[in-house]
């Protein structure tokens, strides 16, 4: 079975599948870790019970999501070797150290303090516990720093040379780490993670407000989440625009695919809103376009000339339909988020933030929008840089392991079955946790153990700590 299949295509499918499942969890836990740190800080500062209730409520959710992120992440760290061994041999000297630094500065930090964060409040007291929460939150951000640096180097490689064995080697580590697309990608992804989390938090708050608009916890989380949507969604559009301009400078072919520009335009390119990219014929079918707007957005001039895919050899074309459509899905989600933010601002000024059923239903419907946008964005950037793994220098077909198709097909099927079983269960447990409103005396991640005194405050926490000894 599978003898006739292309092992490289199967390996790409496996990487895309496992990566797509994985990225959902870090995107959520980067934002949630920071949110938890904010909640705990507010609790320590104000002493209000609602903040510790919300903290414990989201901590349980964090524990489940983080566990899924860890196990799907371990898979990624080995998959470079198992399925992309030629890539690993050639780029290991450059991106290997970046990933090693991610493990040393981020993964250990998160893992080391996670246990205390989840189970240790009574054992270490509120101050030290807050420090642990902070370390986990900082760890998730450091992790984003390194892995996005590694990914960005693959997109816009700088600071390297080739050695006699055909391996990339670093000449200037600063240029490798702070390569041209890295700052843009880092900002865009961290904002995306914060937005994704805010939209989930907002949806959960809205869900409970739809039932009872007077619940204290849902009111606080909904308000906080809507502030995030109002402020961060427009910032994200700005960051995305800057990232796009950076891509135009360093990976123009990706922009051609995102825009669906098969043809060159000497005096102003149109903005193609929708259409059906016909890769075989090299043209856009059924295009709905606004003349000259493409040049205005990308070159800030109506008549600026724009090169199209007709200037690029066919063997260097990325798959245009996927890049074109995933980009539109991402942008569409972004615009909806801005809409939600603006609507919430309007309702806030009208004083109906906690009573507007329309707003709450909109917010509930937007729960998955962050995840969809993150996935669509990554699909855009990763598909758009094909057919290369190291942009312009190492082709994807030359990166794979010397494995037979049946081996890769078997593992791909195993991953699909296991991930669907495991992560479906996980998502159900998450939804079950979210279906309960946060309540008075909310417990941490071990809800089946005997309850502590309800209404715990920072001072009572210290007392409980004393009692536990």
């Amino acid at each position: 079975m599978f003898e006739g299949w292309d092992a490289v295509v199967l390996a790409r499918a496996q990487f895309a599948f496992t990566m797509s499942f994985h990225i959902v969890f870090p995107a959520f836990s980067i934002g949630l870790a920071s949110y938890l740190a904010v909640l705990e800080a507010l609790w320590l500062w104000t002493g209000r019970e609602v903040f510790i209730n919300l903290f414990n409520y989201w901590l349980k959710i964090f524990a489940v999501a983080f566990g899924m992120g860890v196990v799907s992440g371990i898979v990624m760290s080995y998959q470079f070797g198992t399925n992309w061994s030629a890539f690993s041999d050639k780029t290991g000297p450059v991106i290997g150290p970046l990933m090693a630094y991610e493990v040393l500065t981020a993964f250990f930090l998160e893992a080391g303090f996670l246990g205390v964060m989840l189970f240790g409040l009574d054992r270490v007291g509120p101050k030290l516990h807050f420090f642990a929460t902070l370390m986990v939150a900082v760890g998730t951000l450091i992790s984003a720093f390194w892995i996005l640096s590694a990914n960005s180097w693959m997109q816009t490689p700088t600071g390297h040379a080739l050695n006699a064995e055909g391996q990339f080697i670093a000449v200037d580590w600063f240029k490798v780490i702070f390569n041209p697309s890295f700052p843009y990608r880092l900002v865009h992804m961290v904002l995306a993670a914060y937005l994704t989390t805010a939209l989930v938090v907002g949806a959960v708050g809205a869900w409970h407000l739809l039932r009872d608009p007077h619940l204290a916890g849902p009111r606080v989380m909904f308000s906080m989440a809507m502030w995030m949507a109002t402020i961060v969604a427009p910032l994200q559009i700005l960051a995305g625009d800057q990232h796009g301009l950076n891509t135009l400078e360093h990976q123009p072919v990706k922009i051609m695919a995102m825009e669906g520009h098969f043809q060159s335009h000497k005096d102003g390119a149109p903005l193609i809103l929708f259409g059906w990219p016909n890769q075989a014929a090299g043209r856009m079918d059924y295009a709905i376009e606004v003349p000259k707007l493409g040049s205005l957005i990308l070159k800030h001039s109506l008549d600026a000339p724009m090169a199209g895919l007709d200037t690029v050899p066919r063997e260097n074309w990325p798959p245009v339909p996927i890049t074109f459509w995933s980009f539109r899905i991402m942008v569409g989600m972004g615009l909806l988020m801005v809409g939600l933010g603006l609507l919430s601002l309007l309702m806030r000024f009208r004083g109906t933030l906690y009573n507007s059923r329309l707003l709450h239903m909109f917010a509930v419907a937007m729960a998955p929008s962050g995840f969809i946008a993150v996935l669509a964005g990554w699909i855009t950037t990763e598909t758009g840089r094909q057919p290369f793994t190291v942009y312009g220098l190492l082709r994807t077909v030359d990166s794979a392991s010397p494995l037979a198709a049946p081996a890769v097909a078997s593992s791909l099927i195993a991953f699909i079955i296991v991930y669907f079983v495991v992560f479906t269960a996980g998502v159900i447990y998450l939804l079950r946790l979210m279906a309960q409103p946060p309540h008075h005396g909310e417990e941490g991640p071990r809800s089946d153990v005997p309850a502590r005194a309800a209404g715990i405050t920072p001072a009572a926490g210290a007392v409980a700590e004393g009692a536990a000894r």
Partner: protein
Amino acid sequence: MIPIDLPTIWAFIIAFAVFVYVVMDGFDLGLGILFPLFPKKEDRDVIMNSVAPVWDGNETWLVLGGGGLMAAFPLAYAVLMPALYTPMIVMLLGLVFRGVAFEFRWRTTRERNRWDIAFAGGSLLATLAQGIALGAILQGIHVSGRHYAGGWWDWLTPFSILTGVALVIGYALLGSTWLVMKTEGELRDRAYQLSWLLLVAMLCAIGIVSIATPFLHVQYTHRWFAWPNIILTAPVPVAVAAVTVMLLRSLANKYDYQPFFLTLALFALSYAGLGISMYPYIVPQSITIWQAASPANSQLFMLVGVAILIPLILGYTAWAYWVFRGKVKAGSGYH
């Protein structure tokens, strides 16, 4: 005798990371292997709670081992991983099942049993796969140029099965002695009994693997038995015997901490034996650490980070263990 250069330093760092992984995740996986022998829910809760705060940190050493190998010895990573394709994938899937079980089993009553099975089965599979991978590396890997050149079932031999089973026994012993240290009452008594059985099994396993290894390659035989190497290699089995005697005594005296740490010593000695067999090859008989090494500037760049961060990591990891020290009480978890 051993030249002090960057690849050698890095070989020791990777070996250290893998050993810390074995030390930390070994007992953790061992608890999963022993899980079916403790059918009572209360016991299972205690067992889970004894590692819940630290399991994630334990597995991070595996990521460091893999990531560090890619960074410091990319050629070895690129040859070994495809050669060990099936065991690696099985290990990863096993770790998925057991990793999620830590949280999932608390989130459901009806399906708890299912996640207990996932925890036990995942731990067993991951351990078996690690042991098989070890055996497959020791027996040698077919390399051509800078690529793995064998088939996708080359790893499966009687020897690799033997090392797989041996590791299952070893991790189970680590798990049972961990329970001796971390639990009380009936659960602890049961862990003592198991430790006896597992220790005998582990000694048999060490013996059989030790006898079989020199026959795999003439180089191994030469390394262990030729003059003057034997002056340096002979103390290893002597030390194994000494640790075994101490371990038997500590079990007979029902000590709390000694059995676990002496089992770790047994692991350290077996691991040293492995290093003696392999050095200076990173892919036995075909690629040395110098051939596989990253350029000096890559290894140096990371060495700075390792020198500063590893002590720090060991520090706060020790703190986390310290926070959750002592016996785990039934029913109360860590609260």
